């Protein structure tokens, strides 16, 4: 029990540090928020959502997740930059705390930022797209966090992977998108299922449990391999 508590306190320290950094600069959240808003506006202009309510219900699950995906990529690209200033990352590598605690703290912080964006974006989305969900909307309380974690945990990992690479801003989507495709499929299918009310509950639950399985598997892999990536020389 004691080593577990110690690990947890390391994670908490990293999380608090990341939240404080974000609170002082507000770079990631402001950028993400405006970017996601712009994506929604661009799609709204491209599809005329108010004229075709049925089509809108069918496609808006996909549009919502694409907006969140692109917005989180813009924020994730900067999330490790803070550690590079003044060689903080080198200091982190020498610190006695486990490397995966650093990763987990940052991933949870990124998760909170993206969830905040979603909380702001969802009402705007409903208004702009004139959306009347036909299914059980309470399921979004499950789908949104699970889907966001799938994007954020791999995204935080791959940003660290490309940290010392040339054009790393380009590299992140090139690595993250192919790996995330099964999760993206599950998120979009379950969201569309809830919005249209056409998918039966059993199928939606199966998509959600697939998403949860994806989260568990990739969180484990990220935690196991993060030290290798941090010390890749």
């Amino acid at each position: 029990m004691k080593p577990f508590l110690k690990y947890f306190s390391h994670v908490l320290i990293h999380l608090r540090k990341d939240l404080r950094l974000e609170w002082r600069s507000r770079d990631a959240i402001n950028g993400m928020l405006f970017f996601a808003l712009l994506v929604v506006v661009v799609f709204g202009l491209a599809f005329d959502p108010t004229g075709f309510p049925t089509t809108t219900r069918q496609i808006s699950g996909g549009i919502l997740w694409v907006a969140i995906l692109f917005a989180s990529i813009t924020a994730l690209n900067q999330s490790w930059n803070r550690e590079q200033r003044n060689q903080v990352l080198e200091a982190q590598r020498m610190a006695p705390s486990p490397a995966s605690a650093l990763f987990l703290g940052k991933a949870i912080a990124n998760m909170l930022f993206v969830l905040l964006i979603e909380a702001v974006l969802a009402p705007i989305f409903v208004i702009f797209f004139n959306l009347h969900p036909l299914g059980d909307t309470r399921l979004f309380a499950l789908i949104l966090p699970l889907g966001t974690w799938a994007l954020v945990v791999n995204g935080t990992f791959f940003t660290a992977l490309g940290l010392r690479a040339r054009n790393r801003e380009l590299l992140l989507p090139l690595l993250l998108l192919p790996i995330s495709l099964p999760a993206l499929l599950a998120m979009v299918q379950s969201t569309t299922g809830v919005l249209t009310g056409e998918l039966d509950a059993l199928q939606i639950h199966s998509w959600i449990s697939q998403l949860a399985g994806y989260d568990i598997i990739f969180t484990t892999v990220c935690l196991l391999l993060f030290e290798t990536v941090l010390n890749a020389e």
Partner: protein
Amino acid sequence: MEQRTPSLRSVAFLWFGIAIAVLVMGFRQAIFLTPPEDTMGDLYRIFYYHLPHAVLGLIFPYINLVASLAFLYLRHRNPLKALSADALAVAAAEVTVLYVGICLATGMLWGKPAWGIWWAWDARLTSELILWLLYVSYLVLRRFSPSGQAGTLGAVLSVFSAIDVPIVYMSITWWRTQHPAPVFGPNGGGIDRQFWAPVLWNMAGWLLWGILIMIFRYALERRRQLAEQEAALQAIEASLEIPQ
């Protein structure tokens, strides 16, 4: 140090000759000797090229994974051996991209006349495409990474891809399926006896060819690594010779 010894060179030439001979036999079987198929006629002949590339394109990723795991294991224990594992991983990844790419291309050429469309977002096609994308992103990562870290970072991504592929396969099979059932395996459709010869000849031929180009790429990568080591060594020596 791998040197190009005469015996190694003659083995390579012999292998090349056998691969070409088997591929010629396979071509003769596939195009001239085998009768046309009942429903699709001559169109079916593209199958003899599509299937070997599809099957072999699923084998080379395993070589990449095993080599990557070996690299991660040997990285600190035996760095010189780890470098050869890394070279094998690159070679296998490039052959994977090539074979899966050919599988996708022949599939599209076949799909247009058989289904009326070039591409269907069906389970097998989509998962094959994602396999191709994963290995392209592996090669991109290696290209963009600083040369000292490319091996480690690539090996980590290779582990991710290996875990992703079964998940992709399951989730998409669940989504939709249009492609015919697999030929081999418990639920396989099986092949009529008269079509076995061209399938086996082509399978053997493309296997020999794939191994040949993989080993060539491996040797090339080894040489690049050795040249890099040599250059690093010379730089160190030159820095020591600065007069006081």
